[in-house]
């Protein structure tokens, strides 16, 4: 059963999509049954996926594994290999959680092509989960690319005014990166195969061979491959200066699309960095860490500053994503436990907080059909419940302690600051910390302009507060924001083992040894 669990989590949404495709075409009126079908499938996926963390063995590496031969001809060695480890576990859960929430958030906001919309959402879910669970480069690439299409349609069909430009830009940007990654995958496959005589696309095998020095790539090759992969991922993240697709895509995408875009898709980039770049090209990772960290830091500050002056709510959140994801990249390239764990945690945080922010923006958009900050003001007067949720999410986004954002950002900062392997680590950390100030600036300023003050715009006068469905969407998010801030061990413990294995080759043995760790078994029952 364990073996099929992951596959069913991955494919269940697709089954839902197919079910929707086949559902009674005749009556146009029966939109509710479509919505409920989609929602139930995504909820079922979420519930099944909960078995993953429950059954997850913190001491183990890859789990819930299915590994069967797929295409073996031509020494291709392509396998259907899916599994989760600490790296992907929570990202899968994040995905399965966000999709039903996104569906609920846009329950009444899709007015055309509802069936196709729901199909796209579910197909997208399968793609996203697939990216995280794939343990074979071929499979990974497959999901990585296939997932583009539903997203493309989500932006292109259900998007705003400039949806075509945004959709095409999104796809082209991604494709440019991912095709380079394809070249990288082929090269890696070939190099690994000729070095070990085991031609395979299996990520775990290759990683392991790198770890055990069965595969030793020379620095030059490593650099080239590193960039082939990194470009794809950094575009997806997106790291400055590859970020300009993001504001457009976010602004034009419908709410549900933005939620998943920000919540999950961006994580695929950082996930890829941790899955491929660090463990497989450790020397190149060191070689380029300064450049990437610099870009990350520039992105943190730049994203924050540009976010500050955006007149459009979604654009603001989009640029804030640039800033936040800069933290994640910085943490990854700190090569420390704290940095990488923090990065991983920050991915989850960003998924929830920014996802929630987009939900919130969507809620006001549904009511007012505008996202311009200047159109709002004083919403606290008419929508107190809304404002409260907005406040919690805002605070999460500016990394207030005891909320989730803080754990991630602080771990990243301290990991970076204390990194023995990243040059100029202290400088990077200090500059990144400036981002903490700036995030307060732009978020609070935005919050003030939207929520506080008198209701000056008469069209805001009659806005209704959140209804039951909308509260149902925001409550779990807000609760997660708090739970993750107060008791992060719940999540962090599961990822530790994986981070250690990523570090195995990345960090020289001397550094590993000197890494003082308090004994976890000391009695805590005083």
């Amino acid at each position: 059963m364990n073996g099929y669990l992951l596959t069913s989590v991955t494919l269940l949404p697709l089954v839902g999509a197919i079910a929707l495709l086949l559902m009674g075409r005749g009556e146009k009126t029966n939109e509710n049954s479509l919505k409920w079908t989609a929602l139930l499938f995504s909820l079922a996926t979420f519930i099944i996926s909960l078995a993953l963390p429950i059954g997850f063995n913190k001491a183990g590496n890859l789990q819930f594994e299915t590994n069967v031969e797929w295409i073996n001809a031509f020494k291709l060695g392509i396998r259907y290999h899916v599994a989760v480890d600490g790296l992907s576990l929570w990202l899968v859960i994040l995905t399965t959680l966000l999709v039903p929430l996104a569906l609920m958030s846009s329950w009444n906001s899709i007015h055309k092509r509802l069936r196709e919309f729901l199909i796209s959402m579910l197909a997208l879910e399968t793609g996203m989960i697939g990216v995280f669970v794939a343990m074979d480069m071929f499979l990974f690439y497959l999901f990585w690319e296939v997932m583009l299409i539903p997203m493309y349609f989500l932006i292109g069909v259900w998007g705003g005014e400039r949806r075509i430009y945004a959709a095409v830009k999104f796809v082209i940007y991604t494709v440019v990166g991912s095709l380079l990654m394809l070249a990288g995958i082929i090269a890696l496959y070939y190099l690994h195969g000729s070095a070990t005589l085991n031609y395979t696309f299996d990520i775990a095998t290759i990683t392991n061979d790198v770890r055990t020095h069965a595969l030793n790539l020379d620095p030059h090759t490593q650099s080239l491959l590193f960039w082939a992969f990194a470009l794809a991922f950094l575009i997806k993240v997106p790291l400055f200066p590859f970020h300009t697709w993001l504001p457009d895509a976010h602004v034009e995408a419908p709410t549900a699309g933005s939620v998943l875009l920000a919540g999950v898709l961006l994580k695929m980039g950082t996930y890829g960095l941790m899955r491929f770049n660090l463990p497989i090209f450790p020397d190149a990772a060191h070689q380029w860490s300064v450049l990437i960290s610099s870009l990350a830091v520039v992105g943190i500050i730049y994203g924050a500053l540009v976010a500050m002056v955006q007149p459009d709510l979604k654009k603001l959140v989009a640029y804030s994503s640039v800033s936040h994801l800069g933290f994640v990249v910085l943490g990854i390239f700190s090569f420390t436990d704290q940095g990488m764990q923090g990065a991983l945690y920050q991915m989850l945080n960003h998924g929830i907080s920014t996802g929630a922010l987009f939900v919130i923006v969507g809620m006001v958009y549904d009511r007012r059909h505008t996202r311009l900050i200047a159109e709002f003001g004083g919403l606290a007067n008419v929508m107190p419940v809304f404002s409260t949720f907005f406040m919690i999410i805002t605070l999460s986004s500016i990394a207030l302690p005891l909320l989730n954002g803080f754990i991630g950002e602080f771990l990243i900062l301290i990991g970076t600051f204390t990194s023995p392997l990243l040059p100029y680590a202290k400088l990077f950390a200090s500059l990144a910390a400036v981002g903490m100030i700036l995030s307060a600036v732009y978020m609070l300023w935005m919050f003030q302009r939207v929520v506080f003050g008198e209701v000056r715009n008469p069209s805001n006068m009659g806005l209704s507060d959140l209804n039951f469905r909308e509260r149902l969407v925001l409550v779990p998010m807000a609760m997660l924001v708090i739970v993750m801030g107060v008791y992060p061990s719940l999540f962090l413990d599961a990822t530790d083992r994986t981070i250690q294995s990523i570090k195995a080759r990345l960090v020289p043995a001397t550094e590993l040894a000197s890494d003082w760790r308090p004994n976890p078994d000391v009695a805590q029952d005083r």
Partner: protein
Amino acid sequence: MESLGINYHAILPETITASVAVLIMMIDAIARNIERRVAGIVSLIGLIGAAIAVASLWGGNGETSFKGMIITDNFRLSFAMIFLLVTFLTVLISLRWVDDESLPVGEYFALLMFATTGMLFMSAANDLVMIFLGLEITSISTYVLCGYRRKDLRSNESAMKYFILGSVSTAFLLYGIAFVYGATYNPAASPVATTNLSLIRDRIASPGQLFSAPMLLAGAAMMIVGFGFKVATAPFHIWSPDVYEGAPTPVTAFLSTGSKAAAFASFSRVFILTFAATSFASSTGPLHSLQSAITDVLAVMAVLTMTVGNLVAIVQSNIKRMLAYSSIAHAGYALIGVVAGDWRAVVFYMLSYVLINLGAFGIIELIARQGDKRLEISDYSGIGFKSLGLASALSLFLLSLAGIPLTGGFVAKLLVFKSAWAAGFHGLVVIAVINSAISWYYYLRVIVAMFFAEPASAFKAPRLARSMAAAIVLALLGTFYLGILPGRVLDTLERARDQITQARK
């Protein structure tokens, strides 16, 4: 009396297709008034018969027959299957169309079958004369098909351009053959000079047996012109956009797939299995210079082809013309397989490419309607949700052409790139990858028009004939089959490879 090497089994597929062509003519002549569909159905049956014949030959170990004119190996048979598949789908998508356009039915299918016969001979040939003959049969019948809509100026123009340029390229090919023939002269051997490919391979592989190395090189170069023209590689691609655009859509589909695949069959037969038989690294003397010249030139041509195809496709507004450029670009990708010397990759590429392209052209034909009227991309505005099935299928084909995973287009590209990488052509792979990225743009344009743009003109979902539906479904299934479970096909090809290398030893 010495054996004439007659082996009717070995040419059974070709015999079947040729006979079916004649049969169709006879039916057409005798029974003018019977259901016009009969000709098409007869050709379908004939194609299935030919396919069975091909299957019955499977496992051939490279035996030659007819005095070395025909070779039976899995290389030939895999390509033969592709040709039969192409014609099968072409017949399906033209069944209704010939009727709607009130064109001569019998001749149409007969010419298709003749062309198929030519293509089959191209892959079966083990002698340059057979290659030449097969090529000419294919070419001449397609010249006619291009001009099949006689009253249509565009169709005329297409036929004329194809004819003039095709003949010139044939002349070059022929001249090349003459040079190669001259180069193989060895008074000590028997026969003293030859156009037989097996003999040519042996002669150029063993040092000191050649009459004139420069002649061999010049011959090879001119054959590149000939084959390059047929597969439409830059700079010999210039005919194809005009011809593809002007020809009736089903013919375009056939041209861009069948004739291209056939040309690749000969191309690979000559340039991979003959000229590059020994590995590049271990070759010496004239063979080495031949091989390095071939790889250099083909690599440059591949790059040019991809780049020109993709860049110009970006700025096209006519969908047929855009797909013409796209098929130029795809010839470029497939050519990488030739450069890398991996014909299996070429076969697989062609297989998936013909499926996808035929599917796409089928839908285009359907949407274009009678007289090829609606061919501008702007005509596709907003039809996505009016005709969801067709638009989705077309999108899938286009995405597959772009190389999205889960479809044959991706696996094909992967194989080609992998072979090229393994053969050390890293730069080529990178350029191909960048080109793929460019290609996304224009494939997406059509999808944008169909799904994202507002409906521009009145559009009614076309009536979908059963044959056409079958063709599209077949193409779709094939595309996905090759994308998801390519294992069987690849295994078969792999065994073919083993068998060919063994036969050589």
